[in-house]
């Protein structure tokens, strides 16, 4: 089991690095879909968790559907509706971004080791993975011009948080609460999608540099 878990975590890290290096929006969304699926799978592979009840089953199925299918589909639609410009347009170049990803990974490892947290066995990697994902999510928001990339960055941040919350915590959360969180996420991405479409209509582009009129 643990092997599987580690495989998945490594895959997540891989998606993270890939997302930093990808140049096309569609590719990026696909990577995010993969990451969503992987992240949804992690709790199943953990000790103590599992498909214990009907609620849990429903929850995991819903999560898989939302993170792996629904949200990426929405994003793909948004990307398609956006005009020809499908380049990502970074502030920070791709190579530098990948380098940053490695730095995030290193610092996550360093942090986890230096904190001497009383974590259950095998969970250190989850923490590393989660921190890297979160940092990369924030980094994507900062370093990319397109508004869609920021939604993707937000999603990645959420994935990281989810890893920490659902996978690291042993606490038997109430699934209904988790479901609420998930629903919020879904609605958030929907709202963002709607705004993106509107932005596209209003500005003929989703470049965030155009969204800088409101300032002092």
């Amino acid at each position, binding site marked *: 089991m643990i092997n599987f878990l580690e495989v998945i975590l490594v895959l997540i890290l891989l998606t993270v690095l890939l997302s930093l290096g990808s140049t096309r929006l569609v590719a990026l969304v696909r990577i995010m879909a993969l990451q969503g699926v992987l992240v949804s799978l992690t709790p199943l592979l953990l000790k103590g968790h599992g498909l214990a009840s009907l609620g849990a089953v429903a929850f995991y199925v819903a999560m898989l559907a939302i993170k792996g299918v629904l949200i990426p589909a929405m994003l793909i639609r948004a990307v398609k509706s956006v005009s020809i410009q499908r380049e990502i347009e970074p502030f920070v170049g791709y190579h530098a971004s990948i380098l940053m990803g490695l730095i995030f990974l290193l610092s996550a490892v360093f942090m986890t080791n230096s*904190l001497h*947290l*009383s974590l259950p066995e095998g969970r250190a990697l989850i923490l590393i993975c989660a921190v890297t994902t*979160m940092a990369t999510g*924030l980094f994507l*928001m900062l370093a990319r011009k397109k*508004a869609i990339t*920021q*939604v993707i960055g*937000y999603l990645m*941040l*959420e994935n990281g*948080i989810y890893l*920490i*919350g659902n996978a*690291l*915590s*042993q*606490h*038997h*959360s*109430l699934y209904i*609460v*988790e479901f*609420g*969180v998930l*629903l*919020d996420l879904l*609605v*958030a991405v929907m*709202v*963002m999608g709607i*705004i993106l479409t*509107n*932005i596209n209509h*209003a*500005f003929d582009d989703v470049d965030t540099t155009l*969204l*800088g*009129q*409101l300032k*002092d």
Partner: protein
Amino acid sequence: MLELIFLLPFAAGIAAFILPTVLGRVLLLATAIGHLTLGVLGWTGRLTPLFEHFFGASPEGLLILMVTSFIFTCIAIYAFSYAKESELGAERVFSGCMLFFLGTMSMVTVAEHPIVLWIAIEATTLVSAPLIYVHRSQRALEATWKYVLICSVGIALALLGSFFVTLALDMVELHEPLSFALLNSLATQLDPIWLKVGFSFIVIGFGTKMGLAPMHTWLPDAHSEAPSPASALLSGALLNCAFLGIYKAHILMVNAGLGEFSGNLLVVFGLASMVVGGIFIYKQSDYKRMLAYSSIENMGIIAVGVGVGGVGLYGAFIHLIHHSLIKSSLFLSAGNILLAFGTKRVEQVQGLIRSMPKTFVSFLAGFVGIAGLPPFGLFVSEFLIIVAAVRGHWYLSVAIFVLALVLVVAGAGRVVMGMSFNEGDAPSGTGEKFVRLAPAYVLLLASVTLCVWMPESIYTTILHSIQAIGGFHG
């Protein structure tokens, strides 16, 4: 059934999407009154939660609930006329989202489970986003985008913080349903590191929503672009809800013996907000933005008040109540001015005293209130917070606090006095109307009343709210 408090607006909101717009306006008002009634029932303890794992009536929550409900009622009356005058494009969306907004905010106030609280706060962002975009301009779009994205990121961090706190609970190896009560009862056993990390993220996360600097950046944009009733609601009610999240976490920290850490953090962020408010209020050229920055500054004051504790805590709650009343009144007045002049530029609005005398009175009175002068209540809270801060030996903070307040008065005074008294042309837009004036006056009057006579139950509720972290003399 306590849950009715948010279920009723939800139901009404769905109805408002379906019903014709005129009925939507009536529904807005009817729901407001119904909500106020429910609020009073909840206040008197007649409503018990159905899902007590998730919901419950805490004193601080009830306090904010009542403020929200009262303000919403006034705003609903105002919106009745405003929606007509300003020709909102999608009025159904407006009415519906207003009601959803009320529902989500009510949910925040009765949430007893950290994650449920988080869900509710994130939900407030999502349902209020359409409110900001009602005018469908490019600027509104930009504001909405920033609002949604920044708040979402911020609140995501708050979720992380909440997870860290839960993680701290995991270390105790206890298997009981999570709730604030449980956390508080076990506070001393929790791992301080996780709590500190968790609290930091919660402050930054919910602080984004509350408008604490440097995470405040969405706030002026959103407040200035939203239609005035929505801005009033954002400023008068939403920020309080975010504060509630921080406050509950602070209670936990104090119970865990980490009150000093959390207090320091709050004071630092509070002061930063005050300074930022001061910087941007000075020479502000958009009066709605000015009001927004003033909200940032006042949230800073509240954060400082909570951070310094003791009578400052009491002051913070007084400040919260009065700020909500006065600021929403100001936004409503600003809405009237906007309707009349058709511009948010300060230099294009002149001679209110001649052209719009009644709005002038409410606007100027609001300024007096927000500047911390009697007969409005903010001067009591500012006094108490300063006094408490000196007692806590926060000398440098007191200096910054005082200077920031003066800076704010300098900036706001320049704007308000210029708008009120300068020579200028009469406005071309719609004139003053009783329906749009009365709410602003009622809100101000409420603040004055609370400064002269405060009902016993409000006082005891505040005391109960602050009891958990040392109370009045702590």
